[in-house]
């Protein structure tokens, strides 16, 4: 039996543990702050308001169109980039737990994604507030958000697993990620949308993050995701999981020694 697949299934069976540890980490982090996780929400509000009004003038896009799109972009970006930045430490920060208790490894990437998802849930109301204030019309297409989110989360899970393994073996990866993330923020369609670009729209679609972001942003703004975006996300799913499971299986027995 494939070691990686067995591990992943064992981890899924231990979902209670994952949820408990994930939530207690969030609690521990905000224990002594008055607003707690609402700081995240507030941060997103400030970011969306400040950047929204400035950039809508710079890009000459009407506010009621730009600000909701920017808010959606920011929220999704925080989710995706959060998983990437924390995913690298997925195993290395849990060295004590891994070396002292016998648990399936995959609970750690699951926990990384769960924690970022909790953050995402804190931010989502900001989008609806903005959408309501700026009269974005709500419609049934928004329900596409649910299946699309599931697809995104399934993609983020393999990403967290892969980065966790690489981050445990190569301690340079975390620095590379920290260096690259700000650049990626500007080269991904977070502040703008691919169709704002006069000539580079096609190039923008070579950036995998464009597909991850647009998959969720389209339904949030009330239109179903374009077929090719769904297809690329499904392709990521197949290719990503194959790669991650292959590497995980190959390095399964070495992982504990790297920590």
């Amino acid at each position: 039996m494939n070691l990686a697949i067995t591990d992943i299934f064992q981890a899924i069976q231990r979902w209670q543990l994952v949820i408990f540890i994930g939530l207690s980490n969030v609690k521990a982090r905000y224990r002594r702050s008055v607003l707690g996780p609402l700081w995240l929400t507030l941060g997103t509000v400030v970011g969306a308001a400040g950047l929204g009004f400035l950039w809508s003038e710079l890009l000459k896009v009407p506010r009621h169109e730009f600000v909701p799109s920017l808010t959606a972009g920011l929220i999704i970006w925080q989710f995706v980039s959060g998983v990437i930045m924390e995913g690298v430490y997925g195993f290395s920060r849990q060295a004590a737990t891994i070396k002292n208790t016998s648990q399936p490894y995959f609970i750690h990437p699951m926990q990384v994604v769960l924690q970022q998802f909790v953050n995402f849930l804190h931010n989502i109301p900001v989008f609806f507030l903005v959408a309501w204030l700026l009269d974005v019309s709500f419609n049934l297409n928004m329900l596409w958000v649910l299946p699309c989110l599931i697809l995104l989360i399934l993609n983020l899970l393999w990403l967290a697993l892969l980065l966790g393994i690489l981050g445990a073996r190569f301690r340079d990866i975390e620095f590379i990620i920290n260096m690259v993330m700000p650049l990626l923020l500007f080269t991904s369609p977070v502040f703008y949308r691919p169709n704002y670009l006069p000539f580079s729209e096609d190039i923008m679609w070579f950036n995998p993050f464009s597909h991850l972001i647009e998959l969720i942003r389209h339904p949030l703004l009330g239109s179903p995701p374009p077929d090719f975006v769904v297809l690329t996300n499904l392709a990521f799913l197949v290719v990503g999981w194959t790669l991650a499971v292959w590497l995980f299986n190959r390095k399964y027995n070495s992982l504990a020694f790297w920590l």
Partner: protein
Amino acid sequence: MAKLYFDNVSIHYPIFNSRTMSIRNQLVRIATGGIIEREEGGVQIVSALNNVSFQINEGDAVGLVGHNGAGKSTLLRTMAGVYAPATGHVTREGRVATLFDMGAGMDPELSGRENIWRMGFLLGMSRTQINDEMSAIEDFTQLGDFLELPMRTYSTGMAMRLMFAVATSTAPEILLVDEVFGTGDFEFQKKAKVRMQTLLQSVKILVFASHAMTLVREHCNRFFLLEHGVVREIDESELSQFE
């Protein structure tokens, strides 16, 4: 039937320095076909266990003795399934609980009670099991209202009590213990001993690494000496030379 068999098990530890941990070096290695890697900064391999074979069956309580660095912790982690052997085979049947590094899984910002939940989950207990054990754990720790305070306010002895209480309430079949006694005040040690004894009666296999020969004698019926990664079963009379 709980059992723990080692068949010619060897463990090799790769030691990475900054050079071998880095990507640059891996890229250079690929680009140069691996010649550089051999010349500068290859991964050092430490063999922690060499062809270890033994059979531990139900009813065995094994005392593990040996100098610091002899490989006791590595052997225990291999028994627990944390480390996979480079060669050989480990057969393990039965639910394992570990009492290794006491701090693992605790969060200093959370209260004592929250940490009981956390540790319980990490040690493989279910929600109902933890619920059932909660009052016994609280009682044993004697922390009272302190359980509502964050762990960072605890003294070492208090934290120790809490961890010990959780770890000993997991009702495992195989219990692996790495040198956990010797901290805490006298009163606690007495209580810990009683609780440990009750636990040991329910445990089917115990492996206990310690430098305290009195404890080893008291709790164990077989004795393994670990030297330079080799395990040798010794007689109780031979224990005295380590005192």
